């Protein structure tokens, strides 16, 4: 009797050991694979977001995008140009190495090297020096005071110096040459998940890091993650519906109803930070693609406003986006510092548009060429087609040229800017208005000002405000400056903002809870499986 009990007890122990009560697999698919496991390889949100399961930065962000301590426990501004970061003690890399200030200094060097696509993490805030004070204290010195030094550092992963040196990966992958960098397919972070195996474009497997420093506070219970990229929209949805996935994203707006109707799956919809907008060439003296010769009608604010007021944004929302968009008066959406409900869209009013056009001397309308991507944003080409028909109503004949993204970007982006009218989307990487004011509205010059200002809108007053915003450290004053700048650009009709598109993630009923971040970054640590 006693023996039987012992055997039962022993087998129960074995069972418990081999099948931990909380062993949870999680399978998900995105439309593409992470390009690399090297966190400095490309500044692209899915790649960086996926790496964020393995690697960590000095600061982190929560589900609501709030800045949280991560590898740094606290930071303070010692002098206006010197920030001090206290590092977390007792953190171990996945290979067992300890995390110290040396790794931070090393990562600061590596991220600025040739081949790194994240040089801006330190270059944009103007970091000129990174100084190790002791093993767990690092100072960052900037050229000018910068109130938002660390806002993009969630995705500046701190790489182990010893590991990189051991594997000859102290430099990021070179774009030319023939050698593969060790860090391209291997990873050694401090984060909640450890890279177990990686087959590029096929399957990447992560397992839980049992020694993660914040494991006690982790909400999620996933112990193993299988990520499979699925490029075709229909196949991705089918895989979700057939129960082979727990999460598939993005789900195209056409499929949302079907996923919701199927038992066992549903779509999680939420706002995205990206703003979709139309830009106009306001620089050239004659448009590249128009029948108006000798002058540029888009330099006239009345023409821009006429186009704005002829856009039936509610029709785009209900017909093209099937309700999944948030019409926007601003070039930034809710969630970005500087967004304000105060700004309202100009009303949809084709009559006013016609009036404005005839005042500007284009009562008979004109012709203009438009560039549009057809595989970049949600229903991008359809939005452009809707725009074309709306413009036709006020006499502007738009000749649409919709192309795949690689051709499209080659044509419209600087240096060519070979366009008169274009559709683009923008997410400020810093979650702050300075980024779009600087990159989308700044008068173009060689130092990066207005780099994505493809229509070359230029208002020196806005530029002056933008540079004040950069170094104003008083939050209230700074926010007032941001509002002033937006008031000017909106008043100038610098762009025609359309909407923030919605995120749509398809999840299975096995998922009890998941955090959908507005920047479309997905971290497995927030997933609770039933």
């Amino acid at each position, binding site marked *: 009797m006693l023996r039987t009990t012992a055997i039962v007890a022993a087998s129960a122990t074995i069972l418990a050991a081999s099948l931990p009560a909380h062993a949870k697999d999680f399978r998900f698919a995105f439309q593409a694979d992470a390009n690399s496991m090297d966190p400095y390889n490309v500044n692209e949100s899915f790649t960086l977001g996926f790496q964020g399961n393995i690697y960590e930065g000095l600061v982190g962000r929560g589900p609501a995008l709030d800045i949280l301590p991560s590898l740094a426990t606290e930071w303070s501004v010692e002098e206006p140009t010197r920030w001090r970061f206290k590092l977390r003690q007792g953190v171990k890399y996945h290979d067992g190495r300890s995390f110290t200030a040396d790794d931070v200094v090393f990562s600061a060097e590596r991220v600025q090297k040739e081949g790194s696509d994240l040089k801006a993490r330190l270059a944009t805030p103007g970091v000129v020096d990174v100084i190790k004070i002791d093993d767990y204290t690092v100072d960052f010195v900037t050229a000018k005071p910068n109130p938002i030094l660390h806002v993009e550092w969630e995705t500046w992963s701190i790489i182990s110096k010893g590991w990189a040196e051991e594997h000859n990966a102290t430099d990021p992958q070179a774009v030319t040459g023939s050698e593969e960098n060790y860090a391209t397919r291997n990873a050694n972070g401090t984060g909640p998940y450890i890279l177990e195996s990686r087959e590029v474009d096929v399957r990447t497997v992560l397992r839980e890091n049992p020694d993660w420093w914040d494991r006690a506070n982790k909400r999620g219970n996933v112990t193993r993650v299988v990520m499979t990229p699925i490029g075709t929209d229909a196949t991705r949805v089918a895989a979700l519906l057939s129960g082979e996935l727990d999460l598939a994203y993005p789900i195209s707006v056409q499929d949302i109803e079907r996923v919701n109707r199927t038992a066992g799956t549903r779509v999680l919809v939420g706002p995205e930070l990206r703003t979709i907008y139309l830009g106009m060439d306001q620089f050239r003296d004659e448009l590249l693609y128009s029948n108006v010769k000798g002058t540029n009608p888009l330099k006239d604010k009345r023409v821009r406003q006429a186009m704005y007021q002829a856009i039936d944004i509610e029709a785009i929302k209900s017909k093209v986006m099937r309700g999944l968009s948030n019409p926007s008066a601003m070039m930034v959406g809710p969630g970005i510092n500087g967004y304000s409900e105060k700004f309202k869209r100009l009303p949809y009013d084709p009559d006013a548009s016609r009036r404005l056009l005839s005042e500007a001397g284009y009562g008979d309308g004109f012709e203009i060429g438009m560039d549009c991507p057809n595989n970049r944003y949600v229903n991008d080409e359809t939005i452009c087609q809707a725009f074309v028909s709306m413009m036709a109503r006020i006499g502007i004949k738009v000749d649409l040229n919709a192309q795949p993204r690689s051709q499209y970007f080659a044509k419209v982006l600087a240096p060519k800017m070979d366009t008169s009218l274009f559709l683009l989307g923008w997410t400020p*990487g810093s979650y702050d208005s300075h980024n779009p004011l600087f990159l989308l509205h700044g008068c173009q010059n060689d130092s990066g000002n207005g780099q994505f200002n493809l229509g070359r809108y230029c208002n020196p007053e806005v530029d002056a405000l933008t540079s004040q915003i950069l170094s104003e450290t008083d939050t209230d004053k700074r926010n007032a400056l941001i509002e002033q700048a937006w008031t000017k650009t909106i008043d100038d009709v610098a762009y025609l903002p359309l909407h923030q598109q919605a995120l749509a993630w398809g999840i299975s009923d096995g998922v009890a809870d998941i955090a959908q971040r507005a920047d479309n970054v997905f971290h497995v640590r927030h997933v609770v499986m039933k």
Partner: protein
Amino acid sequence: MIALVIRRLLQSVAVMLAVALIAFSLFRFVGDPVAQMVGQETTLQQRAELREQLGLNDPMPIQFARYVRNIAQGEFGISYRLGRPVHQLLGERLPATLELSLVAALFALLVGVPMGVYTALYPQRWLSRAFLTLSLVGISLPTFLIGILLILVFGVVLGWLPTFGRGEVVDIGFWSTGLLSASGWRSIIMPAFTLGMFQLTLIMRLVRSEMLEVLRTDYIKFARARGLRARTINFRHALKNTLVPVITITGLQLGAIIAFAIITESVFQWPGMGLLFLQAIQFADIPVMASYLVLISLFFVIINLVVDVLYHVVDPRLRAERAVAMGNR
């Protein structure tokens, strides 16, 4: 025969060079890889430097010459998208594509030939009519539609087969095979059917019309008159004589299967070369595109060569002609 093989292999080099040249003259239209390779915060100057480093500013003939020179040294370059050597990527993807193509071709052949024979022998039976109607469907529906329909029916509604991927693979040296695991076989059924459907109908209709032709000839009538068994007549005498065009078409179609696996692979997320190529196009990943095209042209040359050799095996007349020609020299 050996002279033929050597001659063909030499020709293949010329074919591959020509394909690479055409490919490079088209790459100007695929867009700008740099815009894809870097994030939005990369400055214009850094972009320009990258473009310069990659040699994208050079005239096309120079880019082409550099590519050929590197290939001659065994360097296929680094993928812009994945940062990995291209020959490794293609090597990893090759087994998936070849397995899928071979299974699809075998399926088309093993099902298509008997169906063709049957419809030729019994043109009036209802099963023949059913086969012919079915083949119309197979020939007229686009591949991606067949694939999506199969996924919907067998993957989503019935839940019998996996909707994407290759299942479990086993590595044997450099070759990864999905044909040794149950999940691998379950995964290959739908893609192979989708890919082989068109060839199946083609082969069936070809065999049928050739058979009908041959069955009308005198020697078949004489064979019947001699009282040979129907099976001997149909298969030994009739079918064998229909095989030359069938081999030609099947061979050429095998090349087509490998080359056009692109669509099937993308529908089923099959991790083969076609999928890699499609992603490379979207990314303007020039090293991958160029090497893929060169590799595919090599396949076509090799397949044509094998087909030529098979003619000689199947058709004794060709051997005889050659012998006569040699004798006359």
